[in-house]
């Protein structure tokens, strides 16, 4: 099964955020360039928001990957909820200050003023909606002191307008919203990913009908699309091993796409 035609495409869609798997799509590339430009500006905070699965984490990882070559960048992809730990980790990663005990905000600001960087260090915070308002207030104070520059990625929820929150409203100088992928963007995303890994035969199996069905099932969510593709190619690998005559190489079977969607929970059956 590991030598299957579909095993390699299956592994491409594992739900792992890797900047090397970044796929250039027109709208995402545009957003990324905006983000890079904003980072170069003397901004205190940059907000990156959008619905789940719109590629915020990927952009942050890509940005971290690209900026880390030139300046001090630290990314916290798993939120550190405790205030003392948060400041201690920042002091350690940014200023190389090692201390087993938690430090206060005053201590952290004194440390920041003592260390002089030519470019303000950048901190990338993923899943920032999980931080408490108190910690967000501390982050605001740090950015106000220009000790650090924050790029904050968080989910945009329907019930809560995060931009209206007090600690973001007056200080965010740049906000970038990411949108769900259109069917065309999803097609480019899947095919580029497959072609990048030289899976030409599999990439040619996708027709417009398949793409529209996948887009309808995933609603343009990249993460769901990855999960669906992973299940679909697992399914194809099984049929290739057990019933190879059932596979048609000119198009994907709608039935198998729906079965993969049932398996991933996109369809409630």
């Amino acid at each position, binding site marked *: 099964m590991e030598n299957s035609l579909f095993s390699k495409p299956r592994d491409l869609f594992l739900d792992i955020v890797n900047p090397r798997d970044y796929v250039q799509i027109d709208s995402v590339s545009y957003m990324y360039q905006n983000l890079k430009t904003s980072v170069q500006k003397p901004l205190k905070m940059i907000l990156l928001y959008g619905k789940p699965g719109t590629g915020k984490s990927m952009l942050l990882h890509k940005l971290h990957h690209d900026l880390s070559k030139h300046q001090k960048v630290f990314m916290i992809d798993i939120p550190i909820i405790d205030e003392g730990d948060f400041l201690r980790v920042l002091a350690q990663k940014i200023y190389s200050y090692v201390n087993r005990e938690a430090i206060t905000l005053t201590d952290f600001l004194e440390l920041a003023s003592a260390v002089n960087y030519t470019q303000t260090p950048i901190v990338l915070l993923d899943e920032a909606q999980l931080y408490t308002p108190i910690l967000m207030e501390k982050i605001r104070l740090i950015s106000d002191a220009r000790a650090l520059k924050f790029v904050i990625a968080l989910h945009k929820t329907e019930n809560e307008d995060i931009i209206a929150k007090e600690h973001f409203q007056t200080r965010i100088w740049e906000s970038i919203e990411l949108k769900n992928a259109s069917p065309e963007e999803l097609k480019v995303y899947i095919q580029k990913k497959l072609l990048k890994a030289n899976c030409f035969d599999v990439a040619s199996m996708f027709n417009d009908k398949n793409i529209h069905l996948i887009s309808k099932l995933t609603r343009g969510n990249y993460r769901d699309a990855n999960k669906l593709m992973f*299940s679909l190619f697992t399914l194809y690998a*099984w049929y290739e091993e057990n019933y190879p005559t059932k596979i048609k190489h000119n198009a994907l079977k709608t039935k198998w796409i*729906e*079965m993969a969607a*049932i*398996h991933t929970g996109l*369809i409630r*059956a």
Partner: protein
Amino acid sequence: MLDIHSLEQRWLKYKIKRSLPYLLILLGTTIVVIAFDHFLYSDKVSTPLTVKKEISSVKKQPKASVHDEAMVLEPSMQFIQSITVATPDITVPDVTAPATPIPVIPKKALPVQKQISSPLPIIKNVQNTPPAPPMPKLILSNPGNKTTSIKRDSATFNIHEIEERFTSNSNPHLGLYIARYHYDNGNYSEAYNYALKTNAINNTIDESWLIFTKSLIKLGRTEQAKKTLQLYISQSNSEEAKNLLNGLRKEGEK
């Protein structure tokens, strides 16, 4: 590892569940269309089903055999029986007759029954006469009986009734009829009176003047009859009146 068989069953359930509303809508629409079609055409014309039933019922009738084709149809004469045949005039003996023994009468002593009780009035076919009154009904006895007796039904013809009608409505045709009736029956004075009344109502009826003058002649008043005729001829130029006047003059010359 995927459980493909379980996944296929779940997919099948999902497809059925997803198709069910469409099937129900299709079924409902079909029922509505059929019901609408049924109610739409049932009020106007007979439905095709009815026509088919009629056709099939016609088809189910047995075909005429050769024997049936050779059968000659004849008109039913039963309607003759429906015609009212006058029951024979049989005199039912009075059951409540006195218990006294009936004396035996020898056959020779029986009087011969008169077949015609009275002569029928002869009515001439004259122009400008009223439609004939209902004639006395002739009651035929049993056709099998050789001795046919004709009796006059006096109840249906009564000259007095006609006279009363003439008195009430003064119809000149009735007056003429009554005058003719009396003249034919030899009752010349009555014929004179009714002819005179008729002429007073309508003086253009030729026959009424003729009956009037003939009645005068029969009553022996020939001169008055001549004068009346001359007066009438001068006004109407009636040929019959002229012939009658000429006849009177010739008889007078003889």
